[in-house]
């Protein structure tokens, strides 16, 4: 062995030793390991990764592992199972509103009522993560969504249409679009949940006329079938079907077809929740500026406002061994830096519910169209499912029937009231 090789070996060895000590040094500093459970899907995971990265940079002693879970009812079962068996991750993201109530928050989740950051969380969000005993047990995660109608700006420009503020204007626009030989309203009953939008997104119009509807509905006094304002949602669905505004394959088309059609101008209107904006931005980036958004119009122009879906919550189970570190992460996610990290990762899909968070200038039009409803003088209100624990499980089947002309609006609303009654009885609500 020559002298040089021996020297290189020696250098290499000492370099290796140095590297090892450096490595073990960082490993030593990251003494707390947390797990963070999020719903799967590229968009949600990207947001979680960016949040964790920014958080770890500020807190080198905490290391967070992201776990994913399926969404939908499989995910609901998993969350309940892991909570019941005490194996939940240290922090997890889950729906707010009625699904939050279903996981028995007072028994399983850490009370966050007195955390200092709660001062900056908007009251409208707090009410959807409040346990029955009056304690707040979650932090907002993600942006608020609006339920309303996506429209293709290119078609509007070509036909010289204006954004409607009343249902009559909306129908007149549809008439013109249909006369021009285009699809006026896109419906995608291949994914049955998409059929509910006309009914669910109409709730702002119901509450604008009758602010006490949610309370009376929960008490079993107000019904969709008998309340004229509430029945309008079903009637709107029936009217658009009977006018022949739908795309030809509305019975088989899927949600993915719907966002493609409204983005590329194959159809003019698509009633949907605004989370679709991120999907459009990732799949059809060159069409994103053609897509606008407006609230589902009611019967009077001055009562025009947006039905809002609250974002998910971030929760900490009581079984976590690292409570302090987990709460630190929740506080970070509910701060202005937290929403900036979310915007960096996923683009802005809507306003955040934390005071002081703002959106960048270059948001897609579908997002900036939403902002006036949240600004001063704008009107918005939460969807019914955040105000009342009852939502009938068969609504999507009923709206498919009404939207396909199998059942009339009045008949569908009456059937839905029957469906709701079963759930209210299951929940043991008084007055049913």
């Amino acid at each position, binding site marked *: 062995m020559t002298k040089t090789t021996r020297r290189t070996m020696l250098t290499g060895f000492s370099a290796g030793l140095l590297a090892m000590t450096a490595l073990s040094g960082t490993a030593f500093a990251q003494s707390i390991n947390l*797990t963070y459970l999020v*719903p*799967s*899907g*590229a*968009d*949600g*995971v990207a947001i979680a990764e960016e949040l964790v990265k920014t958080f770890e940079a500020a807190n080198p002693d905490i290391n967070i*592992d*992201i*776990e*994913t*879970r*399926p*969404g*939908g009812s*499989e995910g609901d*079962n*998993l969350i309940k*199972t*892991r909570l*019941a*068996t*005490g*194996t939940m*991750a240290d922090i997890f993201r889950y729906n707010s509103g009625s699904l939050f109530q279903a996981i028995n928050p007072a028994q399983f989740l850490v009370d966050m009522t007195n955390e200092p950051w709660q001062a900056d969380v908007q009251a409208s969000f707090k009410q959807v993560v409040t346990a029955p005993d009056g304690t707040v047990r979650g932090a907002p995660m993600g942006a608020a969504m609006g339920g309303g109608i996506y429209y293709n700006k290119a078609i509007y420009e070509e036909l010289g249409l204006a954004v409607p503020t009343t249902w009559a204007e909306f129908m007149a626009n549809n008439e013109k679009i249909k006369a021009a030989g285009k699809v006026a309203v896109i419906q995608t009953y291949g994914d049955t949940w998409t059929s509910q939008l006309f009914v669910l997104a109409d709730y702002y119009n119901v509450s604008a006329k009758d602010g006490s509807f949610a309370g009376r509905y929960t008490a079993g006094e107000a019904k969709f079938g008998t309340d004229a304002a509430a029945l309008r949602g079903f009637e709107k669905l029936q009217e658009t079907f009977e006018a022949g505004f739908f795309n030809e394959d509305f019975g088989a088309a*899927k*949600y*993915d077809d719907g966002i*493609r059609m409204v983005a590329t101008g194959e159809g003019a209107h698509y009633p949907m929740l605004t*989370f*679709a904006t*991120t*999907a459009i931005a*990732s*799949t*059809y980036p060159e069409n994103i500026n053609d897509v606008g958004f407006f609230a589902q119009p009611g019967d009077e122009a001055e009562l025009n406002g947006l039905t809002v879906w609250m974002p998910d919550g971030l929760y900490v189970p009581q079984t976590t061994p690292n409570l302090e570190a987990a709460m630190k992460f929740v506080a970070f996610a509910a701060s202005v830096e937290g929403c900036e990290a979310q915007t960096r990762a996923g683009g802005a899909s809507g306003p955040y519910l934390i005071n002081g968070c703002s959106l960048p200038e270059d948001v897609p039009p579908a997002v900036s169209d939403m902002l006036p409803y949240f600004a001063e003088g704008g009107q918005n209100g939460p969807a019914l499912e955040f105000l009342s624990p009852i939502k009938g499980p068969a609504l999507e089947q009923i709206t498919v029937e009404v939207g396909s002309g199998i059942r009339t609006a009045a008949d569908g609303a009456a059937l839905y009231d029957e469906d709701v009654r079963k759930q209210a009885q299951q929940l043991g609500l008084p007055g049913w």
Partner: protein
Amino acid sequence: MSFIRKYWLSAVAILVSVVVFLVPFAFIVLTAFKDPKQASLLDFSWPQGNYLWGNIVEVVTTRNWMLVTAFVNSSILTVASVALLVIFGAMVGFVLQRRKTRLNGLIEFLILAGLMIPPAVVPTIWLLQGIQLFGRLHGLILIEVAYGLPFTILLYRAFISTIPRELDEAAIIDGARPFDVFFKVILPLLWPVTVTNIVVQSVAIFNDFTNPLYYLPGNANATVQLTLYNFQSQFNTSYNLLFTNIVLITIPPLIVFLFFNRQIVAGMTAGAVKG
């Protein structure tokens, strides 16, 4: 003319199997070649350009090379569970078939109960936590063995009844101990039905989704079917990556099938003759 009359049924059968098996597979492979936009159309079309390699790289490296971990975990899980299933299934089947006691009725009832009664998740997790096996791969192996055992035993018992008892007696007369009778005489004769068991159970365990989901939380414990959820959510699904992932995780079972193809058919018919 007689040629057509003779073979038309076979031609129809081949055509049907092509439509049922090959067309969906071709759809998966084609979609794996596409870019996100074309893939989201979900139609049966020729890919515009070859994006396969980029898709594969993205699928494999997603979430810190999760797919590699998942392949290791799934392989260990499948091999270990199937090995235990074959040994225990054959042993129980042998004893049940050969030795008639008063307990046989009860044991058969328990086996059928294992087939018919659906397992409950939460009590199983409590049990696993009690014996410190929750969230560990060997815990899940035991669960897969428990769920697969009744079916395996039924197959073995039916097959062992076709093996003449004289073989055991001859071995015993020659001085074989009970274990020798089983391992040296009976087990080699069970090869056809063992292959059936290996194939049926390894496909089932490799493709299992719900059990790993509930009993094996954590990124380090991912199995291949769970990686599908990296690319799929309710509102935003990357179909090109999803289908690339499906292609990648379909390859191992496919290889198993190609290798054991002939034995599978033999084993199936061998087990089916006597009940």
